[in-house]
């Protein structure tokens, strides 16, 4: 069940916010900066998105924290599964699943790559936010760097998988 909640949280951060809002907002500002399109609100919208980052960074961190927990600890079986198979069997079944996942998904490597990508985007948005605070209506520096960092994080989080934690459900 936890994997299902994780999947929803991951999707909320990565798909609904990072790809569909932040990256779209950053790209729009690039087009505005190059004169390709006109949008008087683009920079203000971007500043709002950067304000939201404080909260969304927490969502992304929670997604990675869960992954870290799965790397480090045994999975606690679902109560319904325990009632069908017994606790000891469930723990064993879950542990085999987890061990296969660790190797198959190269979970530790994926986790550290995603952590690094998250830290990188954090730094970029910090600088971009500071630049926007100084020049709210002018094209800020490091727009491309922020797009690169956001794209790398989106790609990295898209690749993540967690082990299944429901047998029958």
């Amino acid at each position: 069940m936890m994997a299902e909640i994780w999947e929803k949280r991951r999707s909320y951060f990565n798909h609904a916010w990072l790809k569909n809002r932040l990256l779209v907002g950053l790209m729009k500002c690039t087009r505005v900066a190059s004169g390709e399109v006109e949008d008087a609100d683009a920079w203000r919208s971007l500043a709002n998105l950067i304000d939201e980052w404080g909260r969304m960074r927490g969502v992304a961190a929670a997604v990675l924290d869960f992954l870290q927990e799965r790397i480090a600890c045994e999975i606690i079986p679902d109560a319904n599964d325990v009632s069908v198979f017994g606790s000891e069997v469930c723990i064993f079944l879950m542990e085999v699943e987890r061990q296969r996942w660790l190797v198959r998904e190269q979970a530790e490597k994926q986790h550290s790559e995603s952590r690094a990508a998250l830290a990188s985007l954090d730094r970029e948005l910090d600088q971009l936010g500071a630049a926007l605070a100084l020049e709210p209506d002018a094209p800020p520096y490091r727009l491309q760097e922020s797009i690169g960092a956001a794209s790398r994080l989106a790609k990295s989080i898209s690749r993540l998988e967690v082990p299944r934690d429901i047998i029958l459900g």
Partner: protein
Amino acid sequence: MTTNIKAFDKSGDRNALMGLAYGLQITHVNSVQELLGDACVGLFVHVGEDDWNNICRCLPEGRFALRFSTDGYPPKRPEGRYFNCFHCLKHTKGDYRISAAEFKALSQAFSDPKVAGSLGNAILPALRSLIRFYEPHRLRALHFLLQACMVQWAADDPKHGPCALELLGIVYLPPIRRDVNRVSLFKKILMESSAPSRDVEKLNSEIVEQIRNELGVDADFRGAPIPAILKLIGEIDGDVTGSLPITWETAKSLFEGLDELFGVRHTPSP
């Protein structure tokens, strides 16, 4: 080819839904509102949650929406006021991208109100790897159990151990082990929801039907290892004690089929 479908892709990416739609000369519109205001039978969309909820709320009877995503959707029941809004399992980009033939099969089905209207009750054979309503719970449970059986073989059986380890794709066996290769556990998964019956043929057909329903597939669908499951049922049904182990041959064949079904990939160990 002329279809009675229109498409909207929020990303406007020619390598994703938009490109697939152009390939079949499906008109691409600029907004969900435009799609909803049109009279086309089928709507192929790549949209965010708000737009999708709007489609589910407003799409009238006799029209049908299919939602695509870069990474595909898990099995979901039909949505919408008239249960006419569906999700596609296949990705629109990347290695597991929907093929042109599959996309064509979808566009043929969603162009025809009679065919699309039947989707809420039964999924056409040609679409069964593309749209699915249920999670394959029982097959997932079998997969879990067989993974653990493989660990036991890997640890205890000199003959099959190396092959079991290779199939598992792991370097270290889990430190904890329990005896899971017991008919009683397999019976719990496969047979508990079936009515008690000593008629093996009847039991087999019931279980196959239930698994087909979970998967939304035909008995001969390649992705579902139905023959291997029937072999397993044959073995466990013959055991009245509930304690005999299943054979290596049966387990191996089913395990490989389920690994494939669940998309388990083996990566070389470092």
